[in-house]
């Protein structure tokens, strides 16, 4: 059943909330010229608001519904204790401008999270300011820029990005005022060193690299890449979206990266919230630490009752958001990190990688692997089935819905035709991964025997396939547009 818009439950004068009566004398009323007439909000009872959103929620699929192997998104289980943690009154009912001695608990959470993230990265310092991965990228690239300028080096205008990179990489680079140059991928899925060498000149500001890359492959020559870039005077930026493969496996700092971001909403189990909020802390080497966005939390144990305070790095690129960071997300990641511990982190990555390789092993006879190598935490298939030429990755993706599984990422990375990027994560059991593989094999058979089943999929979702062209043409973007 289609759920009506919230406005359908509206009646004039109805209100879904109760507020106290005014308990002070009324002031002179504001000049009517400054005041508005109608706002245009719906007028709905509390029960109808609740039901509306409950019914809407039932049209959604989440990690708590079933397997969500959305490549590059690390849709692992979101522990429920994290949700409880973020709702503690001392975490949620705290104003950002309270005196520091009334928020030492908040600052301790931030300080220790900075430290743990620095340790995992093998880097010197961390800023928790950025709100998401892309925000971290922008911060990091601005740090690279500030660093070069601080060296008096104004020629460097180019940032290199592999052709497999996520769209935010070039977009962030451009926002920082840099020119983007694309580097090719070699036949093993690594950065093509020959192509890379073409760009080794004094215009090079740096390179953004995701490792493991978006093909799910660990770049075997990453240290060589870093050496080349460093030799040319450039800096290495690490897109940490895929850190779920590297926890306790390798420290980006030791691989040659100078600055990187994390996605707490991927690697560290904070929920995606249907598109956010995220948190994208930046980590960097000592060389770049002064340029971090701030403020950071520092600790001086000598100060009684107020050991933690904020400090702005001396040559900071500045704030990238108001206040300090997505604290509520940071609390969840802190809780997760404290539960996992060092050994646990390595197990997380090991099993994430095992699950992906297991999927690849079970499916590779049926679907072509983009690269025939041991993959990391995700594997990329070509979503094509021999003997079913009219069937596309999209059809396979939609058909998975009918089996109660969320589709993998498709049509990304762009360099793989009909890509299906599968990231099971470590919290999927063998049984769950087996179910997924069996469904994928069944679908391949269906593709050959009954391709219409796939073209028409999904059949068991709240809606059938949606017309995106119509949406872009009609541009109905609000309730008001419907009128």
């Amino acid at each position, binding site marked *: 059943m289609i759920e009506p818009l919230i406005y359908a439950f509206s009646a004039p004068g109805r209100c879904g909330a109760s*507020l106290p009566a005014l308990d002070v004398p009324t002031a002179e009323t*504001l000049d009517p010229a400054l005041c*508005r007439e109608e*706002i245009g*909000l719906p*007028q709905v009872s509390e029960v109808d608001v609740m039901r509306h*959103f409950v019914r809407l929620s039932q*049209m959604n*699929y989440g990690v708590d519904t079933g397997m969500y192997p959305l490549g590059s998104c690390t849709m692992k289980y979101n522990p429920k204790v994290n949700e409880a*943690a973020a*709702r503690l*009154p*001392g*975490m*949620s009912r*705290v*104003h950002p401008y*309270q*005196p520091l001695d009334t928020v030492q608990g908040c600052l*301790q959470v931030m300080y220790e999270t900075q430290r743990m993230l620095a*340790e995992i990265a093998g880097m010197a310092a961390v800023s928790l300011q950025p709100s998401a991965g892309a925000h971290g990228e*922008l911060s990091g690239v*601005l740090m690279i820029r500030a660093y070069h300028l601080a060296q008096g080096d104004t020629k460097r205008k180019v940032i290199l990005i592999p052709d497999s990179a996520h*769209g*935010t990489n070039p*977009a962030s680079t*451009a926002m920082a005022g*840099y020119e983007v140059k694309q580097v090719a991928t070699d036949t093993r899925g690594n950065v093509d060193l020959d192509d890379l060498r073409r760009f080794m000149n004094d215009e090079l500001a740096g390179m953004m690299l995701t490792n493991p890359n978006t093909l799910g492959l660990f770049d075997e020559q990453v240290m060589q890449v870093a050496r080349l870039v460093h030799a040319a005077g450039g800096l290495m930026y690490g897109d940490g979206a895929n850190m779920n493969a590297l926890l306790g496996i390798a420290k980006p700092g030791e691989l040659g990266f100078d600055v990187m971001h994390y996605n707490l*909403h991927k690697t560290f189990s904070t929920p995606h*919230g*249907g*598109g*956010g*909020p*995220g948190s994208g802390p930046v980590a960097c080497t000592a060389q770049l630490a002064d340029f971090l966005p701030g403020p950071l939390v520092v600790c001086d144990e000598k100060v009684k009752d107020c050991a933690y305070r904020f400090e702005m790095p001396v040559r900071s*690129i500045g*704030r*990238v958001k108001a206040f300090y960071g997505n*604290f509520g997300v940071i609390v969840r990641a802190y*809780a997760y990190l404290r*539960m996992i*511990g*060092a050994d646990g982190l390595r197990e997380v990555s090991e099993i994430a*990688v*095992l699950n992906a390789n*297991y999927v690849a*092993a079970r499916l590779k006879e049926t679907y072509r692997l983009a690269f025939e190598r041991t993959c990391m935490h995700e594997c990329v298939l070509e979503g094509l089935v021999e003997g079913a030429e009219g069937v596309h990755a999209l059809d396979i*993706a939609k058909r998975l*819905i009918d089996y109660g599984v969320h589709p993998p990422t498709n049509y990304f990375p762009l360099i793989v035709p009909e890509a299906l990027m599968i990231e099971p994560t*470590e919290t*999927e059991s*063998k049984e769950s991964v087996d179910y997924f593989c069996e469904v994928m094999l069944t679908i391949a058979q269906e593709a050959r025997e009954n391709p219409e089943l796939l073209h028409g999929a999904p059949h068991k979702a*709240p*809606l059938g*396939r949606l*017309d*995106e062209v119509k*949406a872009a043409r009609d*541009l109905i973007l609000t309730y008001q*547009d419907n009128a």
Partner: protein
Amino acid sequence: MTFVPHTRAQVDEMLETVGVESVEALFEAVPAAVRFPALDLPPALSELELRNELNALSKANENLDDTPSFLGAGSYNHFVPSLVDAIISRSEFYTAYTPYQPEISQGTLQAMFEYQSMIAALTGMEVSNASMYDGATSLAEAVLMAWRMAKGKRSQVVLAGAIHPEYVEVVRTYIQGMPLELVSAEMDALTVDTHTAAVVVQYPDFRGEIQDIATLAEAAHAAGASLIVVAYPIALGMLKSPGELGADIVVGEGQPLGNALAYGGPYLGFFACRKKDVRRMAGRVVGQTTDVHDERGFVLTLSTREQHIRREKATSNICSNEGLNALAAAVYLSAMGECGLRQVAQLCYHKAHYAAQEVAKIPGLSVVNERPFFNEFVVHSTRPAAEMLEAVRARSGILAGCDMARWGMDAHELLVCVTEMNTREQIDRLVDVLGEVLA
């Protein structure tokens, strides 16, 4: 606890299927010298131990359920109906990703469409995106959008009057690689000309005052510049909408709409503009369409503006936004509705004016705002604000406001915010204690 469900036997079986000897063997691509580093981290805790730890950390903070507060300045202690949390705690909402698969994401998509609709109504604009990171980054993105609207040919952005200093800092950070400069100017001494891409004004401004947006809009438009209004959404329950007053882009902090204070985040930036400019807008947008059975449904649309399609030519790099916060805002606006939001605004207005009037009676204190204000006002004190705040707190536990010196402004000024959460009793107590402190 790692949340890994694998038994040892299953790991072995899987290794066999994969065709490797050990888990370690999966990592041979990692240079051996740096493979499997030791991590110096605190020991793993069980959930029980973690909860004890978190409770202790939480108790190491004062929280506004226990502490009366007159803090505002961009983060506001408003009432959040209990049903907001009941809804955003629904697994299907908070454990979903961005709605890339619309057939199984209609919950998120329709909620975002409703959010867009309500933000458009509130701001008096035609379209809204599905959220930005926060109010400050929303402003930065608005400045970049205005620059694009000026086809990159105008290099100046005029910051008119009192704007939240941290917002200005964020804009400065964002544009440091861009051929753009920021010019701050008093409201009565603005230069807007053919170099001006945009004029930015806060509404009410950082000092709580309701500026004359309409006149500013005229000035901006006369020079071919855009007017960007940074609005406080609760005030829009009472004040003329920026759209009505001529704004081209309206942004602001959506936290007051049903989101927790959470020590400064996660919040959400709202972002609204005219429909004709929507292709230059940053961020995700949900549009209405139909499915193959001709049923009404929703999808992400206009994605050709976005990074995953347009890459370095995208209108912004933003990918994950603040979806769940926007959901909270949608639920809040639905529950409060027309009457509720109006009532909240009225409560804020009258309580703040009562507080201002009483505070102003205290010798040594004065309310220095010259224009009408909404629910925040600036108090000048003969004693330094920092000293006074500390003294009030020591006597009463009350957090009386923000010291303007925090942002490098007048150390004898105090920004005081009053909301529907402040009872008369709290206000009267504040006034008494201020009187004592200044006596």
